[in-house]
């Protein structure tokens, strides 16, 4: 298969082969090995085939300067420091330091590689900034005796010139589209020193069989390509298939999915984790790998932990006892969320977790992290690395599960990154924890992680990586008009004129065009069968065919069948069965069921909801938000008013109080209410928020009490009392906010609401606010003077009583038109009729529940469901189809 016998002959004679890419080295090596095997050899000396850069690095160790060469991460680190300092010194702002340093480094390398420079005369402000950094950098290098790694190649040339390095063999350069000036000067040096220098390019000289395909969109394009590749690979496991894309990054995830679909359908259903059936040149950041992500999370956790972060920690498999306690920790999370705290300081977490039954292995992890966060010293990065490793160890990272091979590799690579921190000791002073964790985060983001693949038959590459490679079949994706040549992207730190002078890449339209032509020529020659494809349409935007491919004929691929699992499974579908099972087994136990109030309430809202909440015991998990949620605020108002009336107890005494006295009292009881809430939650409120809330409560209380003042006299009989009651098979424990005895001796039963209360929720067969109606069951109708919601709202106009009363005048502004209208429409003219209606309706709701009613019937199709946690379970979103399904006969 290999056509370059000349190259192999030279290698056999001991020539060194220097390549543009690692991949090409491997391919030439493979070709060489194959030729050896073909010639019947069982063992042979391995020729030197390596990327030019590695060769230089190897050679330079023989010079006396090797320990002075910085690593590229050290150099990058130092450039960042330089730029950071310059930003501060020039009182400037720069959003992105690290990427800027990278770009500036690139400029530095370009100038070096093209043996170019520029002066301030032609420099705009950006270029001048670069000149400053370059200056500082070169001063630093000479002061410290360091050597910039991107200049190694020049050192090699010089060493060859002066005879310090002797290259005995011939040197072959392979796979370069272009040589920059320093590379050319290396070749000159070699030749002057007497080496033969051979340049190998386009080493396949096949009669190409090329064509163009226009696909409707990227997805189809990649799909076609994947099927084509699978067909070829399945037919002959020996052929080499290349897939190349000018913008591989944007195609990557699509390629990944579609190739997995076609190449390993059975494996995809098993969830992957197996070897990839193809080799793709872009890895993912190491930081995204499960165990590494977890390690970073542990190390970078803030002092205050959000409920989401805590939940994540409770669910991660990568800490101690995670697998063993997986079920339990899930439950811990659910319970913790019920506290409705959005965040908590890490050091307070343990106590709060214990109160919801958290396992100690987990609280030990929290302890370890609290400990870790105590380290506030400044130290060298290498020392931090040790500390990081120890912390991870005490967290039991990477967990109690056996690692998969991929996890093992990731852990190992992370170990390398951590250990590598010590290389910064030489270029950095002592740094603090957050600086170092940020550094680790960045390094793991930059380090790519490549999952192992099972072979290199199918190689998926970027344009440049394909340099010099040879395939049997090649497919080039994404070749629409805009893809090549690309818009110019000159380096912003070098004046454009200077870049054009030296013909640096990406700076001149005609150079790019020329380069694109050469690339296409090279690609066209690198396989005997080359297909170029392009999507007609990308995210709604029409593409045009690339003019550079005009000479190629369109080809028609035979439509190959898809192997992808999803369509196959879709194709296997049969008519679905239908079930309607909304009547379940009645409750077996004859004992009264507790939680009656909530049951009746849910039953009224939607019977399915009562069934799911109270028989399946399933509630959605809560996700608390920052600040105080409505429920807590409501509780606080209740408590405050309870405390307020606790010793005042009567309208008369209340009316004797001055405004100042009331306000003073309110502030005190508001504080008491907050303190009570904190005690229940086992967690304090942050101090300023606490203060604000107390003020708010007191203010709201004051607005409300205005309404109480205008009432006719009353005495408070009880507050927040628990009442128990059994109606039918349901047992009720209701807490009645307040019961007043009115002038006429009757009772007013009062429910505080901090939302907008709607007394209509009391009526009809669906009593969705059942507390007061339930309590009324205990009393004779004649004892009841009023049943009321007390709306305690921040808007004074909305503060009022609403509900029914025998003597409405006792409660100013009581009657609402809507309620009256409703009552009259239903023929309820007296309060007694209403009370009687409750006596009928409540047991009905209870019985329906007990008897296994699970009908889907929300009281309001929009609002009830909007605030319901069960939509995925009841499948109400399919309601539009029910009628249709009913007619289907399956």
């Amino acid at each position, binding site marked *: 298969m290999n056509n370059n016998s000349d190259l192999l002959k030279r290698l056999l004679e001991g020539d060194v082969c220097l390549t543009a890419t690692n991949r090409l080295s491997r391919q030439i090596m493979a070709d060489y090995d194959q030729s050896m095997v073909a010639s019947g050899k069982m063992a042979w000396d391995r020729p030197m085939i390596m990327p030019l850069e590695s060769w230089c690095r190897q050679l330079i160790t023989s010079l006396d300067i090797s320990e002075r060469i910085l690593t590229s991460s050290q150099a990058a680190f130092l450039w960042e420091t330089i730029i950071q300092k310059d930003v501060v010194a020039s009182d400037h702002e720069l959003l992105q330091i690290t990427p800027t340093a990278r770009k500036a480094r690139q400029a530095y390398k370009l100038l070096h590689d093209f043996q170019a420079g520029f002066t301030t005369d032609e420099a705009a402000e950006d270029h001048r900034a670069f000149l400053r950094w370059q200056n500082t950098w070169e001063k630093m290098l000479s002061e410290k005796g360091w050597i910039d790694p991107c200049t190694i190649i020049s050192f090699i040339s010089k060493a060859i010139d002066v005879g310090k390095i002797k290259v005995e063999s011939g040197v072959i350069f392979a796979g370069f589209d272009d040589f920059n000036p320093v590379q050319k000067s290396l070749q000159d040096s070699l030749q002057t020193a007497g080496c033969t220098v051979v340049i190998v390019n386009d080493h396949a000289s096949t009669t190409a069989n090329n064509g163009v395909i226009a696909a409707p969109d990227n997805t189809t394009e990649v799909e076609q390509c994947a099927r084509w590749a699978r067909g070829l690979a399945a037919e002959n496991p020996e052929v080499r298939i290349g897939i190349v894309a000018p913008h591989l990054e944007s195609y990557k995830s699509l390629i990944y999915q579609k190739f997995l679909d076609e190449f390993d359908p059975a494996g995809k259903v098993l969830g992957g984790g197996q070897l990839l059936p193809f080799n793709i040149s872009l890895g993912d950041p190491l930081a995204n790998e499960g165990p590494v992500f977890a390690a970073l999370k542990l190390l970078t956790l803030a002092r205050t932990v959000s409920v989401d972060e805590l939940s994540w920690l409770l669910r991660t498999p990568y800490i101690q006892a995670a697998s063993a306690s997986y079920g339990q920790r899930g439950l811990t999370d659910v319970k913790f969320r019920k506290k409705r705290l959005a965040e908590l300081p890490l050091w307070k977490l343990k106590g709060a977790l214990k109160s919801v039954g958290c396992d100690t292995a987990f609280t030990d992890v929290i302890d370890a992290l609290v400990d870790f966060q105590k380290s506030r010293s400044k130290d060298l990065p290498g020392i931090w690395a040790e500390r990081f490793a120890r912390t991870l160890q005490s967290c039991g990272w990477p967990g109690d599960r056996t690692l998969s091979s991929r996890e093992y590799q990731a852990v190992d690579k992370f170990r390398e990154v951590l250990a590598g921190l010590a290389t910064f000791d030489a270029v950095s002073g002592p740094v603090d924890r957050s600086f170092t964790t940020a550094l680790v985060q960045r390094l793991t983001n930059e380090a790519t992680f490549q999952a192992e693949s099972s072979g290199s038959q199918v190689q998926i590459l970027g344009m440049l990586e394909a340099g010099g490679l040879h395939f049997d079949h090649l497919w080039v994706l994404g070749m629409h008009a805009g893809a090549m040549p690309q818009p110019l992207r000159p380096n912003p730190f070098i004046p454009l004129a200077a870049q054009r002078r030296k013909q640096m890449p990406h700076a001149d339209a005609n150079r790019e065009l020329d380069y694109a032509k050469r690339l296409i020529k090279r690609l066209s020659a690198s396989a005997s069968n080359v297909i170029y494809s392009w999507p007609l349409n990308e995210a709604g935007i*029409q593409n*045009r065919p690339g003019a550079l491919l005009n000479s190629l004929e369109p080809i028609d691929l035979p439509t190959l069948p898809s192997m992808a699992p999803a369509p196959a499974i879709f194709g296997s579908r049969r008519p679905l069965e239908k079930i309607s099972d909304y009547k379940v087994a009645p409750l077996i136990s004859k004992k009264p069921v507790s939680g009656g109030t909530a049951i009746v309430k849910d039953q009224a809202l939607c019977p399915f909801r009562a069934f799911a909440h109270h028989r399946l015991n399933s509630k959605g998990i809560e996700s608390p938000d920052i600040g105080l949620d409505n429920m807590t605020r409501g509780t606080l108002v209740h408590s405050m008013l309870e405390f307020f009336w606790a010793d005042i107890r009567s309208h008369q005494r209340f009316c004797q109080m001055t405004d100042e006295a009331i306000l003073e009292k309110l502030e005190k009881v508001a504080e008491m209410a907050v303190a009570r809430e904190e005690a229940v939650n086992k967690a304090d409120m942050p101090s300023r928020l606490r203060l604000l809330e107390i003020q708010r409560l007191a203010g709201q209380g004051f607005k409300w009490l205005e309404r109480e003042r205008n009432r006719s006299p009353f005495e408070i009989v009880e507050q927040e009392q628990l009442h128990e009651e059994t109606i039918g098979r349901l047992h009720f424990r209701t807490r009645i906010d307040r019961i007043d005895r009115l002038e006429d001796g009757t009772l007013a039963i009062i429910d505080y609401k901090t939302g907008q209360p709607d007394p209509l929720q009391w009526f009809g067969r669906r009593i969705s606010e059942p507390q007061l109606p339930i309590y009324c069951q205990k009393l004779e109708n004649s004892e009841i003077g009023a049943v009321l919601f007390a709306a305690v709202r921040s808007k004074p106009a909305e503060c009022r009583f609403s509900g029914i009363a025998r003597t409405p005048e006792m409660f100013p502004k009581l009657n609402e038109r809507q309620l009256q209208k409703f009552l009259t429409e239903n023929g309820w003219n007296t309060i007694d009729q209403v009370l009687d209606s409750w006596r009928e309706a409540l047991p009905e709701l209870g019985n329906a529940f007990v008897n296994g009613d699970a009908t889907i019937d929300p009281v309001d199709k929009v609002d009830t469901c909007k605030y319901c946690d069960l939509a995925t379970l009841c499948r109400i979103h399919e309601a539009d189809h029910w009628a249709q399904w009913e007619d289907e006969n399956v």
Partner: protein
Amino acid sequence: MSESQKTHIADAAQRAKALDVKQSFIVQAPAGSGKTELLIQRILALLAVAESPEEILAITFTRKAAGEMKSRLLEALDRATSDEMPHASHERETWARARVVLERDHACNWNLQENPARLQIMTIDSFCSSLSRRMPWIARLGDQPGVTDDAEELYLQAAENLLAKLESDSHSSQSIAFMLQHLDNRVTQLRQLIVAMLARRDQWIRHLIDSQGQSKHILESALESFVIATVDSTRQTLGQATCQQLLELAMFASANLDQSGVKNILEPFVGYTGDLTEPSAHLQWLSLTNLLLTGNDSIRKRVDVNTGFPPNAAAEEAAMKEKMQLLLAHFATDPEKSAAIVALRGLPAVSYDEQQWHALQSLIDLLPLAVVELRNVFRSSGRVDFVEIAGSARAALGSIETPEDLLLQLDNSIKHILVDEFQDTSYTQYALLQNLTLGWEQGDGRTLFVVGDPMQSIYRFREADVGLFLKTAKDGIGTVDLEPLGLTANFRSQAGLVDWFNQTFPQLFPRNGDMLVGAVPYAPADAVQAKLPLGAVSQNYFLGRNDTDESERVLELVRESIKNEPDGSIAVLVRSRTHLLEIIRLFNQHGVPYQAQDLDLLSDRPVAHDIVALTRALLHSGDSVAWLSVLRAPWCGMTLDDLLVLTGEKHKAPVFNRIFNDPDQVEMFSALSIEGHRLLDRIRPVLKRAIQQKGRVSLRQLVESAWLALGGPAVVDESGLSDAEQLFRLLDQLDAGGDLLCFDELERGLTRLYASADPTAGPNLQVMTIHKAKGLEFDTVILPGLGRTPRRDEKTLLRWIEHPDYGLLLAPVPPSGEDEDDIYRSIGKILRQRDEHETLRLFYVAATRARKQLHLLGHVKSSGDEEKPEASSLLATVWESVAEEATLLTVDDNPEEASLQKAYIRRLPAQWHLPELPQSVCTGDGQSVSASEVSGDPSFSASRFSLRSEEGRLIGVSVHRWLETFAGQGVTTFTPEQFNRIAKKIGLELSQAGVPADRLASCTARVVDCLKRTLDSDKGQWILAPHLDHACEKAVSGIVDERLVHASIDRTFIDDNIRWVIDYKTSTPAKDESLELFLQRETAHYQGQVHIYTRLFSQLEPDRSVKGALYFPAIDTWKVVGE
């Protein structure tokens, strides 16, 4: 365009003029006027004289438009390659111009056709990106960060970071506390308000930065000037005599009121001695509105005791009352005067009260800090929004002081700028143009060409400000004056429609332009297309709202259209996607195929719910609802009774534990129905496997594989697979180490995705929002829901208006629980007027999409004796002009509660099973392996994590390298000084390699120790000696056990005709390990590897005897392997 046609086209002269490449123009190009063609012709004209194509910059509104313009330009060039002149006359002009460009292209070696990237046609966003990419330092971004379309998460983060400062000592703490108090201590509300402000920060930041130094006085004087000016203009409209009369009447009424004890609505007139003309009279004027206007801003019909005119009074008083009534009647009939009076309503006080001022100060303090936080979030996430890019680009350009610097910075100077859709330009873009044209002079050959249609400005929500169009036409941009041109020809709509437009719209559009309220006048059109016989416009209005009835009418119209013209295109256009729900439901129900763009939310699709439930279940053992949903989903479909068994009513254990960890599983399973048992058996292993894979594979893989294995694809409809794919992509985006960081993000993400279109529907019937339809055209356009009102404006932290004459008007959000104050309200009033004008334009855009026919549908309400559409509905804007001809259809206004259908779930039938899927191809191609891989697998047991092993490795590498050097140089001894030097070098090397500073000494010592021991020992000297054919790091390959092996051998040579193959190991015995045991252990571990080496050499040198050995420099021990 041929001569003959030119004469037909009314605006031919204007069009010709627009191609004058020496002049700058602002072109008003109404709907259907063919502006894209004009733009292309102008670009061609410019290219024909340009020095390089990069001199010409064309800015479009969307990426799609940029793509289209580029394509059309290239097509023009392609067509021009052919010598054949096109037949269609209007193409001829383009063809001829393109030929000139081709010549120029040739002459200058541009290669435009091969290198279309040279054409600078792009959106303002990409232009800003390219600018800031060119200027990393002065744009203050550095190398360009990623740009995100949806920065909501980032705003949220920034807002939360800011709010977290409440508990800190920073000075923002007080302002936050104040604002919280102001907003009833609702932290989330304040957060959302800040988020909303951050998204529009380009609009206010400059004002706030400016106002930071401004005193209360400056802001108040702007208010005052505004109030006084309004009063002034009212006074002038009313006229001197009327004012005098009013004063008299008001004094009279005020006095009466003061006596009568009713609330004096004319309080400021008590004891008033002025004459209503001085500026300070504004309070009197404001109170006059109480006398003249009713609560809903119409002129009062009669006055009574409450307004100061008691009944049955004496003759003189009766006369006053009579006078008053007459005056009112006069106002009522004069729309101009009544409008002038209404304009006074709600004018603000001219000073802020204490609470307002405090709130304003807090915001002026806080909002810039929120921006700072946002910058921090941008920094740490490496992503920014377009606002940031545009802001940076502008700031960078702004910091360049001379045109020469600009040239240096960008090198390629832009000589001609064309801007499309200029009516939707924002302040930032406008300012950017100012910066770009810095130093341009009239007649220096540089031109600006902006095109747009103010009547089609509908992107206020994206900061478009139509006022800028008016301003530019009037004042130019920077130093560039633009000559206004107006196109009038409408190539799109048939004459019948154009007539209707020309009749209807002038009544609706204001007569004059007004920058403050964004009002633009109507420009009439000349029809090019002939009149068609069919009725151009049909109006279908209902009395009372009933979406079903209206939708049914839409369906009828669609069917009629299809019948009349089967190939015609039909579009149903609405103002907001919610208006379509009922129509889409009806289309679906009747099997009418349609294409919908971005209308169906993914979150409305069952497949999305099912996959979300699956995701949640797999990620959270405690999420019972998710677990039960997975069991209930169609791929399983367990009955409720079985679910009751599984949840174990009595046990109260979470479902997850019951399924996987329950000790009484046998008992539990036996209680299940047979069917239930079967179902559980089928899905349990899939779920179990997935849970075990968590973290090991990507989130997408985790969920997708489980979904496939459960049979998910077998229970979806035609578009289900692509819907699922969208959801999987979302999972990919949210992937956090194979998990989710926040479940709510999934839900939120879902509401931003749209379900896939019906793959089987053809393009004939399309359904979309009016905004999406901009720039498109259809034979028939149906506009339903005209009677519906948009959602009300939400509260914002600040309301501001940059008044063209009086400067910045600014008001903070009123405190929670209190009514809007008058400053906030009156600024709101102006904003609302802007909205109203835009609503009108939206209607214009919608109507002008039609080529042949337009159908209007909507409802009106009857209020009292009038039948009227609701205010701020689209219909309200046109009602006056169409009311007469409209006949109202009645609806069933009391639709009976549709009782809920009997519910069903569906599930896979029992016979279904997962189809057999093909196995993997490509299981390896005999790639080479290294010797150590062949001999042993890495063990995956998780040992305790530590960095020590890395140190050992570095020591090993160093020892290897130095032994190689020694052997290579043939050195055998060193003086102590030499050794010291070597030790120093080793230290530096180790440090470079990554030995931490505090470990450096001991590690160096270990290396040195190894080297010393080796050199000191005879064995060591023998190993390093220059034997026959010796080599270090010898590279040998070969076939061992039918596998290709690549080996690197530490040391090899021939001594005594024996080929020695030696591997160095720097390990040492463990603490209590005897040397013997150690050697046993190491040999056992490495013998496979050494054996491969020796086999390779025996194959290489078949006649020689080959021996393998391990050498341990750290303990100077030698062990021959395999003897």
